[in-house]
């Protein structure tokens, strides 16, 4: 090795050494932090936790419970003021039932909410196996905060969001965290404080977490932690709204017999068959795409939903033969959903249409169902059969 090469290597080592030192510092601190939490060996054995306690939001103290798994799943039920909230997260996608948004059925969470559920889904510290999960950590330095000397670590999560953690330099336990949080589904910065660390089966866990963001204050007081309980993983899945779930019998892949009504014969006669797929595209929406031919070929896209504002089912039908969208409204009673467009307005004006349509969807005991289309020329006083679709299950 010539002298010049030695000089270059020496220079490179010199230039890189502060970064190596910092990296070493961060990992050393985290190793002591994990040890302070009971040690990696203990955390390795943790598959799930069930937490009960009290949550204070808007100064109202109410019971809460949550479950978490080592795969990053999370479920919680808690009260925020007067409303009960439910949150679920499978490690990738999440949902919530949040009456504060005046939506009483489950909805998908937005990106800001997802970032928060990722934080909530952590068992307790995000530094446990942080690198295996794609997170990065940078040692920022030491800081005195509220009279406590703290190591400051910057955590960058896999989603690119950064958090600043303050670990007590004596105990190596977390004192404070600055991270993005949400207030009524809108993202904003927050400060979290951790206290009352207790040892549960060798794991050291903060039983008091206080979080402030904007002028809000939330306090979580843990009362009981169950380690490695049996968890029914279905609780993390996106639930359907209770009302739309009543139409579960329509979900699936179907062979469909198409009949039309013969007024002369006074009976149905078959004009062909087709197939159809009906599935839940959203928590409160069932979607069908069907193509068939009576006189002309046509494709219909049907969306069934339940309106909280009217307390009734709605059906939106796009008919590509006429390039029209029609809206129907109705109720589900005794296994039968009946919808019509006699009282449906488009915007502020009623649609001018001399002929009204009614759909009757009836569930059969053998797992099949039928949709009978009727028409009325006297604004719904009397209905005459027009078409009938009989759905027989292809695949359950």
């Amino acid at each position, binding site marked *: 090795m010539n002298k010049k090469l030695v000089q270059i290597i020496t220079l490179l080592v010199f230039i890189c050494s502060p970064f190596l030192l910092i990296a070493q510092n961060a990992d050393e601190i985290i190793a002591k932090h994990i040890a302070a939490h009971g040690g990696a060996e203990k955390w390795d054995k943790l598959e799930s936790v069930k937490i009960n306690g009290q949550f*204070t939001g*808007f*100064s*109202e*103290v109410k019971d809460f419970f949550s479950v978490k798994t080592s795969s990053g799943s999370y479920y919680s039920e808690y009260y925020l*003021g*007067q*409303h009960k909230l439910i949150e679920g997260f499978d490690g990738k996608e999440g949902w919530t039932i949040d009456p504060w948004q005046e939506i009483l059925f489950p909805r998908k969470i937005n990106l800001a909410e997802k970032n928060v559920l990722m934080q909530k889904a952590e068992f307790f510290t995000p530094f446990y196996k942080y690198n295996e999960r794609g997170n990065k950590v940078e040692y920022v330095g030491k800081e005195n905060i*509220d*009279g406590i000397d703290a190591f400051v670590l910057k955590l960058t999560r896999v989603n690119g969001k950064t958090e600043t953690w303050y670990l007590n330099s004596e105990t190596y336990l977390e004192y404070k965290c600055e991270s993005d949080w949400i207030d009524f589904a809108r993202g904003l910065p927050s400060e979290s*404080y951790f*206290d009352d660390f207790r040892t549960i089966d060798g794991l050291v866990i903060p039983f*008091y977490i*206080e979080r*402030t963001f*904007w*002028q*809000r*204050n939330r*306090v979580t007081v843990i009362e009981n932690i169950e380690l490695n309980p049996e968890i029914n993983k279905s609780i993390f899945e996106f639930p359907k709204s209770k009302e739309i779930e009543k139409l579960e019998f329509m979900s699936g892949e179907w062979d469909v017999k198409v009949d039309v009504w013969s007024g002369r014969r006074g009976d149905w006669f078959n004009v062909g068959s087709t197939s159809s797929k009906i599935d839940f595209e959203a928590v409160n929406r069932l979607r069908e795409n069907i193509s068939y031919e009576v006189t002309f070929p046509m494709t219909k896209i049907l969306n069934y939903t339940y309106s909280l504002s009217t307390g009734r089912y709605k059906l939106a039908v796009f008919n590509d033969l006429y390039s029209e969208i029609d809206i129907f409204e109705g109720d589900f009673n005794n296994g039968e959903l009946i919808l019509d467009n006699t009282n449906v307005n488009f915007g502020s004006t009623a649609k001018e249409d001399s002929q009204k349509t009614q759909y009757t969807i009836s569930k059969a005991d053998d797992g099949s169902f039928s949709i009978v289309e009727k028409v009325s020329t006297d604004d719904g006083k009397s209905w005459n059969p027009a078409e009938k679709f009989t759905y027989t299950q292809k695949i359950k």
Partner: protein
Amino acid sequence: MKRKIFGISILIVLGIIHPDNANSQQNENTNWNQFRGSERNGLALNASIKDTLFEGSYQMQWKKDIGSAFSEITVSGNKIYTMLSEKIDSVSGFEFVAAFDAKTGNEIWRSQVDSIFIDVDGWGNGSRSTPAVDEEFIYSFSALGKLTATTIKDGKNIWQVDFVKEFGSTRPRWGYSTSPLLVDDILIMEVGGTDSHAFAAFNKKTGEVKWTKANGNAHYSSPVLANIEGQNQIIFANGGFIYSYNSKGDTLWTYKTPVRSAMSMPVVIEQNKIFVSTAAAGFIILEINDNKPKEFLRGSTMKADYSSCVYYKGNIYGFHIAALQCISAETGEKKWTKRGFGKGSLIIVDNKLMVLSDTGKLIQIKATSDSYTEQGSFQAIKGKSWTAPSFANGKLYVRNLTEMACYVL
């Protein structure tokens, strides 16, 4: 447990603790007759209470259920006053101003002053404002915007002004919340009306408008009276401005403030300074010389939301969002901070902070910037507690949306 009860009984027998003489030291303050006390500063310094607060050191005089409201309890003579509301069905009801016997908590009279304000957000129904009491009348302000004078003797309504109808005021989202300010023979109010009716002075006896000033909507910060350079100054923090008027309605000064839309009341600091704080922007201290305000200090170490701060011996104590905090009024430096009381409220009695947590726990803390020194605590009332305590005649009064209580300290 039996041993503990026996011990306390012995102390009572020996006269060391006596329910009626629990505060053996003389208490001189006799009134807490308006929002934040007679001087509107949250201080009862001419009182003397014990240096500790523990079971047996205080005596619960009474505890009563009360209709929903956020009004503080005001004290004048042997009566206490506050506001309350009662629903008659899910959407309607009434707001009342009421007088109670200070010794027993028994209701003496109540007077209906308005329909109930139902909070759509569910924070709590009824009045937000604290009534002010003088020798003859009690002045209340309903959450729907009616200012009413009622006789303290028998609860008879004498005059009433509807801010919405008479001044075109628009009700704030969470209801009218500011508290009447007594200044000599006039009553000062934030009105939030149109055409230079942001603020008004009323003849206390008749309700006649004496003067009106400025443009601005009704908000949540109550006016305060300061004596600066020998003259009374009525201070309002409204929107993006801080205003000062004398009792005749002359504008003394106006200051465009970066600390906008305060909800808590401005705090007067010694001779010539005014402290205004908000949860969003932190605080500003103005220094006033020759009716000219200038920024003395600005900082983020005290972000007060709806709970007003107190100034005591060079320091400001208050809730920095949800952390009880002491900061220097000279430098803004944070002296100490203590979490765990939620978004509580506080006053100073003797030389102690009396802090009511937002869940009804009463905590006594030494009022010093040296360190956080807790002298005891107990659960005074249960449930969401956003109303600051009051103190008069050796008794501390607390309330929330469902109950009120009196403690002899």
